Structure formats: C-alpha cells, structure tokens
C-alpha cells in the first residue's frame, strides 16, 4: 500500500515522535525510583530521631 516516495522521512517522523515519548517515560520511571528511595531514607531518619528522643 505504501509507495516509496518520501518513505524515509516518514520513518524519521514516526521514529522522532515515539522517541520523545519513550524518553519521557524513561525519565518518569527513573524519577519514580529516586522518589521511593528518598521517602525510605527520610522515614528511617525520622524513626531514629523519635527513638533517640
């Protein structure tokens, strides 16, 4: 169905569109991890403080 005319650029277009989304999803996932770690350390810190009081 697809003719060859401009086919490469069409491919670039789709690749670019999806790369943007994929990169964003990757940043989201990495942030998710970082946030989880941070909550854990802070909660530990506060628990230690409560004990030492």
């Amino acid at each position, binding site marked *: 169905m*697809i*003719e060859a*005319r401009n086919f490469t*650029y069409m491919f670039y*277009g789709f690749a670019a*569109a999806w790369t943007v989304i994929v990169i964003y999803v990757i940043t989201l996932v990495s942030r998710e991890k970082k*946030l989880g770690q*941070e*909550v854990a350390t802070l909660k530990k810190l506060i628990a230690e403080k409560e004990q030492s009081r």
Partner: protein
Amino acid sequence: MREKLLYGLGLAAILYLVRNLYVIFLVLPDELAQGAIYRVFYFHLPGYFTAALCYLLAGIFSAMYLITRKWKWDSLAAAITEVGLPFAAMNLITGMIWGRIIWGIWWTWDPRLTSALISALIYAGYLMLRQAIPDPTERAKNSAVMAIFAFASVIFTYKSNEWFRTQHPGPVLSIRTGGGTIDPQMEWMLAHNLFALLLLAGLLLAIRWRQEERQREIESLRREALSFS
C-alpha cells in the same frame, strides 16, 4: 487497586496505538500530492491538540488551586504541564520533518510554528520556575499565577498570529471548514489517534501526579527531620 488501574490504562493505550499504527500504515491509502510523508500528520495534529488541552487544563487547575488552596490542584497543574510538553515536542518535530519535504526547509518563521514554539518555551519556563522555588506554599501560589499568565499569553500569541499571513496549511477538520477538504476516512483516523494520545497523556498524568504528591510528602518529611532538633 490504583496500580492495577494504571497498568490497565497503560495496556489499553498501547494496544490502541498499535491498532492505529496498523491502520495508518497498512489500511489507509497514500495522499495523492504528498505521498507517504503525510502520515506524520496523524501524530502532528493530535499531538498539538493533546498539548493544547494540557495547557488549557493547566490553566484551569491553577485557577482551582488559587480558589481552593488544595494541594491536589497544584500537583495536577504541575503534572499536566509537564505531560503536555512531550506532545508539544512531538507536534513540533513531526511538523519540522514534514516541512523539510513539502516546503524544502526544516523551519520557517511562520506564525503558527512560531506561536507553537513560544507556547512550549513559556511552559518550559513554568517548570523552571517551579524548580527554583524551595518553599512549597510559595511555589504553588507563584507558579499558579504564572500558569494563568502563561495561558493568557498563549491565547494572545495564537490569536494575534491568526491575523497575519501564514504558509501553514489552514484548518482541515470538518468542524472548522464545514467538511469537504479531508477524506472522512482520514479524519476518522485522526480522531482515533487523538483519542489514543489522550489516553496515553492520561496515563502519564496519573503517574506524574502521584510523583508530584510524593515529592511534597518528601518535602514535609525533610522539614520534620530537620526541625525540633
């Protein structure tokens, strides 16, 4: 429960997009004048609408924050602005690639392109402002005000640009033209893909929103860890 809902939403969005890609590539015919390249249009236009909807909602959520002073609106506004930007980037990049073929240049200072770029810059500025304010209350308040100004100037830029000559193709959707300029089959595909992108944006929003709430939780935990010592 919420986790499962998110996974479900993600799966639905991906399946829908795959189905749309199949139709775009293998079912729909080429456009006569442009050949295969016209297909980026199925992401170009829905990407733009998704971003525009995000901008609009960011303005509404920010106004809601200022009225109710409930944190949820602040987090929602932050999340949706950020989610809107990749879709704006999708719109700009596919547009540039299309322009390279049809106009022979990557970029032209056409009013519509310019206003799309300016809007993206303004909202990137909004995210920068959020990053720079450490106090959560001040951050929520000031960025909500900025979002309202941003929305006003996006509308203003867009409207003022409509007055000028443009080499960008005019409206094609039948809602604006009264029908006739676009094959109904193609228009249906646009609607399908817009729906798919909105689904994806909704999923990203849900994830980002939760992160924003957790970020605030971290800030108050940190404050608690540092105080009363």
